[in-house]
């Protein structure tokens, strides 16, 4: 069912989605494809071949100027001033009490004075833009420009994604070949009459790239991705439904689910994304304090018995008593059984702990398992 209203934002690929008869839904104010034909088929195509995702709704801020690094240092949980040109770092934005405001990617542009690209969640775009402005140090010479609506972003993900990206970008043999990109690195590639930013990143647990290009080139690029055969097969357009089942199997947190202002990075299991030494940012004092105290809750992975999936807010029970809540759950197409993530106190977070989940009144046995649920073969 389409929830479209006239106020929803359209990505540069909106017409392409309509042509493919995608089911479009309101996602963070954008009209986005949740699926084209089948979430299961789109999921499997991404695990076995290549899935194509329109992720143009993700917020894209260019931060330029002499103090671009200083501006970001003042709000990110992780250092970015030492980030080499062409590299990317995952970080968090926290509020004063250490609660998570967003999870982001910071790209260091190649020329040192060219600054950074910051990718934020669609649902947090306005909030983070305002947050950056509010936390601008006095005399800071940096400009933050929201380029989300001027560009498109396409994720090409799957075991043959690098081959497809190289073919479509026509970079076979060139130094800018995406296959030569390291994980969490980016490069600018000339394509047609424009520059395309290619990064070896993704949100599916597969290898692949994410490509950012000017809106006016997006449809042509997408069309070329959809018709180019790799291993005798074309790539499969995939919607937000498959993106969610893929990222959940890979145990990647989703803002609004595993990440929220009510949890801090320690509870979320994201200590790697926090660098406190000699740094000061909103939340750094609280995070220093919280680090030395036992956490009140922890993110866990759960494998459920039977076929029914737990969903957001389902109570997690231990001995019949509620001890936590599910943040995401689905039927895993790869494992062919229901999987979920949620938060429980540390006493219940050990591997193999037997818990129960209240799924709409039915009590379903579940077991704490190691994350991620799925790891690709390298």
């Amino acid at each position, binding site marked *: 069912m389409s929830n479209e209203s006239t106020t929803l934002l359209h990505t540069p690929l909106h017409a392409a989605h309509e042509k493919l008869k995608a089911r479009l839904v309101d996602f963070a104010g954008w009209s986005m494809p949740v699926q084209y034909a*089948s*979430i299961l088929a789109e999921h499997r195509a991404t695990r076995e071949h290549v899935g194509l995702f329109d992720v143009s709704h993700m917020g894209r801020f260019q931060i330029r100027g002499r103090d671009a690094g200083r501006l970001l240092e003042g709000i990110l949980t992780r250092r970015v001033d030492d980030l080499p040109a062409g590299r990317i770092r995952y970080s968090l934005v926290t509020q004063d009490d250490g609660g998570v405001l967003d999870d982001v990617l910071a790209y260091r542009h190649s020329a040192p004075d060219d600054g950074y690209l910051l990718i934020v969640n669609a649902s947090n775009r306005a909030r983070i833009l305002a947050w950056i402005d509010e936390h601008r140090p006095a005399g800071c010479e940096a400009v933050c420009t929201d380029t989300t609506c001027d560009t498109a972003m396409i994720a090409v993900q799957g075991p043959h994604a690098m081959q497809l990206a190289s073919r479509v970008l026509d970079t076979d043999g060139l130094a800018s070949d995406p296959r030569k990109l390291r994980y969490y690195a980016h490069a600018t590639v000339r394509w047609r009459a424009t520059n395309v930013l290619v990064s070896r990143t993704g949100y599916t647990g597969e290898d692949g790239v994410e490509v950012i290009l000017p809106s006016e080139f997006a449809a042509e690029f997408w069309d070329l991705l959809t018709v180019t055969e790799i291993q005798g097969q074309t790539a499969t357009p995939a919607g937000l439904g498959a993106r969610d089942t893929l990222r959940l199997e890979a145990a990647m947190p989703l803002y609004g689910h595993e990440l929220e202002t009510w949890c801090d990075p320690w509870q979320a299991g994201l200590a790697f994304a926090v660098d406190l030494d000699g740094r000061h940012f909103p939340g750094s004092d609280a995070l220093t304090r919280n680090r030395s105290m036992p956490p009140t809750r922890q993110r866990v992975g759960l494998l459920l018995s039977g076929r*029914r999936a737990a969903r957001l807010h389902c109570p997690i029970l231990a001995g019949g008593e509620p001890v936590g809540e599910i943040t995401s759950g689905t039927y895993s197409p790869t494992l062919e059984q229901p999987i979920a993530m949620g938060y429980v106190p540390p006493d219940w977070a050990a591997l193999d702990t037997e818990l129960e989940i209240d799924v709409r009144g039915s009590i379903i046995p579940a077991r704490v398992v190691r994350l991620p649920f799925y790891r690709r073969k390298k």
Partner: protein
Amino acid sequence: MDPQQLKFSPTHEWVHLSDVGGQRIATVGISAFAIALLTDLVHMELPAVGRAARPGESLGEIESVKAVSDVYSPVEGEVVEVNSGLVGNLEAMGDDPYGKSWIVKIRTTSDAGLDQLMDYATYQAQCATEG
């Protein structure tokens, strides 16, 4: 079964009424439109035989990768049979939505709920506004 011969609820269940040995039996399933909308079905929770059914009350759940939906009883009565063969074969549910993919049979005990049901043309018109 020809959908033209069936009645439909606003919540996408279909009903076929028949007389079996003096008892009125309602066979209930969900429409082709609903099956197409759900897609990627992975599980169905069926009611117990003998359970009471009331119009608008949930009889069971149908779960897709994306979400879970209730199957509502369109009539009042008692569940006398469930199609347990469906559960392991949900991907084929759309092949014969008005025949092999029936979900429950209910022995009706009143006319409650029947006035809420639509003919196929009216139901199709409703679907057109939801599509």
